[in-house]
């Protein structure tokens, strides 16, 4: 029974990480219909930058901040420099973002090498925390990770629902042409959203590097999980990303604990079922 609770806790913490990674991806898609295949690369870039900064200064929080900022900057550059030129042509954008992802991955391999990095956490995050009810020790960093994802999720929701700029973004999701006609600088909003998506990815990268580890390949792993999460949850909605992350995180951990050999299959079975029954995702809106 203890195992069941521990695995559930693992699933929840993994879901928190998946949510952080997928929310930015989903945000970008929701507004621009761009499937940003470079999202994983931005995440890994943020992770590496965060590691470098945390290693140089010894300040973990600064590392998370720098990782988010670095990836936000890179995300904005991608939109201004490449994807912005082909706005409205989603297929071309997707293909271009795959190219960017491959180029970034090679550049990162060149700069940081193939070694696996682990971002050192400060003392208050390291080691285990005793959970009395279960009678086990549990990694503190993972518990804080859950809290962090919760805060980010609520903040993101408030931003989208309650602020003026959030209202503009929502309006853009519904009717881009109208927004443009009303004189809103839509290209600048696109860049802003891309930067936000990059920031979320970058922070997720540093946190993934603290709770797990980062290495070449982490980019594709998180890109894949983000894709699955938003496909299951529904593209373009914060709630959908949260629900999708929860389902996938739990399924992966139960799979790994109770049927390790088939763990990799479980997530895809969920995806296939969702696609068959509700192709727009659990919380997604059907295309008009």
């Amino acid at each position, binding site marked *: 029974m203890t195992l069941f609770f521990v695995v559930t806790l693992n699933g929840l913490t993994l879901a928190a990480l998946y949510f952080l990674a997928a929310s930015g991806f989903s945000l970008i898609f929701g507004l621009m219909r761009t499937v940003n295949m470079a999202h994983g690369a931005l995440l890994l870039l943020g992770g590496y930058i965060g590691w470098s900064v945390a290693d140089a200064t010894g300040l973990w929080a600064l590392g998370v901040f720098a990782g988010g900022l670095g990836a936000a900057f890179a995300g904005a550059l991608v939109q201004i420099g490449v994807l912005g030129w082909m706005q409205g042509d989603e297929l071309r954008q997707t293909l271009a973002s795959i190219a960017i992802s491959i180029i970034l991955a090679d550049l990162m391999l060149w700069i940081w090498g193939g070694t696996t990095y682990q971002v050192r956490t400060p003392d208050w995050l390291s080691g285990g925390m005793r959970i009395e009810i279960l009678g086990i020790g549990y990694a503190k960093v993972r518990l804080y990770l859950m809290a962090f994802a919760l805060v980010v999720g609520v903040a993101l929701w408030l931003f989208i629902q309650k602020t003026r700029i959030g209202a503009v973004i929502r309006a853009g999701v519904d009717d881009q042409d109208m927004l443009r006609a009303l004189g809103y600088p839509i290209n600048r909003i696109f860049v802003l959203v891309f930067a936000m998506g990059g920031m979320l990815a970058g922070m997720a990268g540093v946190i993934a590097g603290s709770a797990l580890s980062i290495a070449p390949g982490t980019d594709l792993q998180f890109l894949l999980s983000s894709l699955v999460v938003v496909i299951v949850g529904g593209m373009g909605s914060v709630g959908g990303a949260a629900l999708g992350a929860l389902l996938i995180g739990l399924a992966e951990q139960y799979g*790994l*604990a109770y049927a390790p*050999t088939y763990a990799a299959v479980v997530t895809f079975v969920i995806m296939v079922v969702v696609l068959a029954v509700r192709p727009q995702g659990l919380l997604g809106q059907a295309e008009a």
Partner: protein
Amino acid sequence: MKNLKIAVSALALSAAAVPASADDIKIGVISILEGAFAALGQDGIRGVEMAIADAGGSVAGKDVELIVVSSDASPDSAVAAARRLIEQDGVQVIVGPLSGSEGLALRDLSRSYPEVTIINGSSGAQDTTLRDPSENFYRFGGDGAQWMAGVGTYAHDTLGYEKVAIVAEDYSFPYTQVLGFMSEFCAAGGTVPEKFWTPIGNADYSSVVYSIPQDVDAIFVALGGSDAVSFLTQYQQAGFNTPIIGGSITIDQTVLSSDASFRDMLLGAPAGTPTVSDFDSPEWTAFSAAYAEAYPDGLGAPSIFAHHYYMGGHAAMLALEEVGGDLSDGGAAFRAVLDDLEFVQPTGGIMRLDENRNGIVDNFVIEVFEREDGSLGTRAIEVVKDVNQTLGQDLETFLAAGPVSRDNPSCP
């Protein structure tokens, strides 16, 4: 404007490609430069480069050109890489691949290209050479089981472990490693109550960590690269302290050099490997020094991958020299030389092949220790000489035990 862009990019492309003369000898290299094994693959490339540099970059007066192609640890990607090298680049000698199942795939592919010689990099699946071998596939090195020689006995008799759980990746190389460990450990009287096979590239091992039975004396971990780092980190974070026994690529320089918090936990952990980072022999000292000089940004010492890709490249260069760089007979003379080739390997022993073209090797039981500068290295506890592919057993009996799999061998 558009035409201008195309013209400029075409110009840039043609300037980057240095024209190769027809007399050059092209050697294809297949290694993994992406994903979880990228650090290992990078070190493999260093190994081949060292072998070429040893010969002065040319053989029998012809320049040697390396063409490196990346695979991603999957058999398909290795086959695609090899096809590209053979059909587009026209290579007749390939060094590689890195990973177990890739080796099996290339052995099968080699049958369709009898004029091409494939010299294994570091892939260590057993059946690549044991069952149904291919005439033009060579392995100057051991398989995963040979690399564990001595460890099972050491764990049982010297460390006194009776019950060991296994955590390993779910493909042919770890199966082979587990066989190497268990064949000795079970014969000595130990038991393995449970095995956990996990997918390659898995990042979150926490549920496996908590599923491991509490009453085992040690855990045998056969994971590579970032998988090993992830597992060990999470195991340590969860606050467990059961001792670790390492597979050959778990306790490897690529893992020991990573910046992670589990370092202290690994001190004293035993493992089996053909490559010891701090091994006191003149040959190894010279090899490490050459490595450190050529690659100041490399790992703390050559890894198993640099070592084995070096041996593959070295064997190719020696045999090419012998035939005067002439492969025009479809490589028949080249392979005849390879069959009987013997050379001193970087760890000091004599490398030679059995009738299936698999290496007979010296293997080491090692332990992790801390160097004076604080970095982690491995040192030899014991050397097991002349380990062949059947681990000293009779070939018939060994084959009768059946191919390795998740469930074979078993001693719960």
